[in-house]
């Protein structure tokens, strides 16, 4: 059963008339993961924000996106607000700027729970501690009292993921969650997503890192310049891409990992 179905999603700048995303169509089944890959500026994040009605008013969205019985593009802001978080959770790319710099992490996580789960602030606090514990964050009380700038990007990213998990949405959209993290944090964050997948969470995972998408996704959508280049099963796209651009992406990655592999092997050989 398809959770989200998007037909001919287009985004244009109403001031300049420039077309940013063109006729994007995709769907996502329950308990699967859709990976969206493409270079920066290809319209990946923009499309996801458009679905949730998070684009500034100067950008015009057309097309049809169905979530259950609801048509998301034409929906009122209030309807969308109730879908956000409770049904579709977004994890943003830039964790360092995603939280209000003048409120503590505790305040922000608690207010989210109070708003969406109808908890009292006392219950919300308890849940927050549980969430942080589950995310393997040491000393959750200290984290709750901290301001965002006192925490590392990886820590903030894990708070966002933890929050998304605790809200128990039907879909989590993760917009390049590993960008801007060092490799150790990247690995931890990826492990969380893998766990989410294993728990049966439906996931849309946006990345320009093919390796990461291959690790998580069932289906892949390749985007370039706001257009869908290729859309299909991950295994097929990665082993036997139809389009020259997808092939180029996959080949580039192969040659990069090849160089890396050679270097590792060389290092191993010399150290012996």
């Amino acid at each position: 059963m398809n959770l989200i179905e998007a037909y001919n999603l287009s985004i244009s700048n109403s001031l300049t008339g420039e077309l940013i995303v063109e006729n994007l169509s995709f769907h996502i089944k329950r308990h699967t993961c859709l990976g969206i890959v493409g270079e920066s500026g290809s319209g990946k994040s923009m499309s996801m924000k458009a679905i949730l009605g998070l684009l500034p008013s100067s950008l015009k969205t057309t097309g049809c996106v169905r979530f259950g019985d609801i048509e998301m593009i034409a929906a009122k802001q209030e309807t969308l607000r109730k879908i956000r978080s409770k049904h579709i959770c977004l994890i943003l790319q830039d964790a360092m700027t995603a939280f209000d710099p003048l409120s503590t992490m505790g305040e922000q996580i608690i207010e989210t729970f109070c708003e969406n789960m109808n908890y009292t602030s006392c219950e919300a606090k308890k849940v927050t501690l549980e969430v942080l514990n589950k995310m393997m964050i040491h000393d959750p009380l200290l984290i709750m009292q901290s301001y965002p700038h006192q925490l590392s990007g990886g820590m903030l990213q894990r708070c966002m993921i933890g929050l998304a998990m605790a809200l128990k949405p039907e879909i989590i959209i993760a917009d390049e969650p590993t960008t801007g993290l060092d490799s150790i944090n990247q690995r931890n964050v990826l492990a969380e997503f893998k766990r989410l997948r294993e728990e049966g969470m439906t996931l849309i995972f946006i990345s320009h890192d093919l390796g990461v998408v291959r690790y998580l996704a069932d289906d892949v959508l390749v985007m370039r310049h706001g257009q869908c280049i290729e859309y299909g099963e991950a295994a097929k796209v990665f082993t036997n891409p139809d389009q020259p651009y997808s092939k180029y992406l996959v080949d580039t990655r192969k040659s990069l990992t090849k160089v890396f592999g050679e270097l590792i092997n060389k290092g191993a050989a010399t150290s012996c």
Partner: protein
Amino acid sequence: MGFGRNCDDMQRGAFMRNYMIKRILWILPMLVGISFFAFVLITLSPGDPAEVALRVNEIVPTPEAIALMREQLGLDKPFFTRYVEWLLAVVQGDFGNSYVNNKSVFQEFIMALPATLYLSAVALIFIIFISVPIGVLCAVYEGSMGDIFVRVFIFLATAMPGFWVGLLLIWLFSVQLGLFPTSGMQAANSVVLPAFTLALTYIATYIRLIRNNMIENKQENYVTYAKARGLKESIIYRHIFKNSLNEVLTALGMSIPKLIAGSVIVENIFAWPGVGRLCVSAIFNRDFPIIQAYVLMMAVLFVICNLIVDILSASLDPRISQDG
């Protein structure tokens, strides 16, 4: 994570303390510099204070009388001697006597200061209670008819000079409508017109500052995420407002001494018996000790307000207090 953070905090705290001590130590040389500068300017200005003092007291300024007066006022001494004597007296709390009526300058100020402080305080209340709600509403209803109307008002209010606005207000509210007295401070509502005149440009400035800051903050990533978290508009605007406030508070802190100093013109239009009027009449009478005391008082006010604003904004924004 835990240890590193506490260590960092301690270091930053010490840095902040050093910074504050340095700031406070700098106040003294700054005040000496300002008062010296003011002394030079007054001495260079044309007009002999001895002669004016005689005329004001209705004595014919013959050369002998002027010479005697100069000696009495100490004006025959060299410039540096006069400055150092003045400075030493001020350190001991003695601001000298007025050239014109020989009253203690300190006493004159104590008499006039409450009126000015009262006027500025009422103006400040007008500024806060008018510009904050209107600024917030403009940001929330950006682009609406009301927003456009307010923007036209801001444009007009910043373009109109204070003395002219004051006269217009007197004409409309006192002469035509008879709602407020034209001048003085006898009636309870006499403060309304001068305070509003004083506040008007600031009201316009702060509406614009709050509105623009909030609109700028609306584009921030944390607002997108706050929306994605399903928060209500009212909670999101609370976050936006909090983040827009720091710059406003800094500007407001610096506006307080400006309000007090800026009351000079308003006090003269509305015949408000404050320090501004005292200073203007002192300037006309070449009454050096009063002018000198006024300049010093304003300098102290600016320096202290500046310091308080710095400390306040550091305590409001956790990022500043820790990054130094």
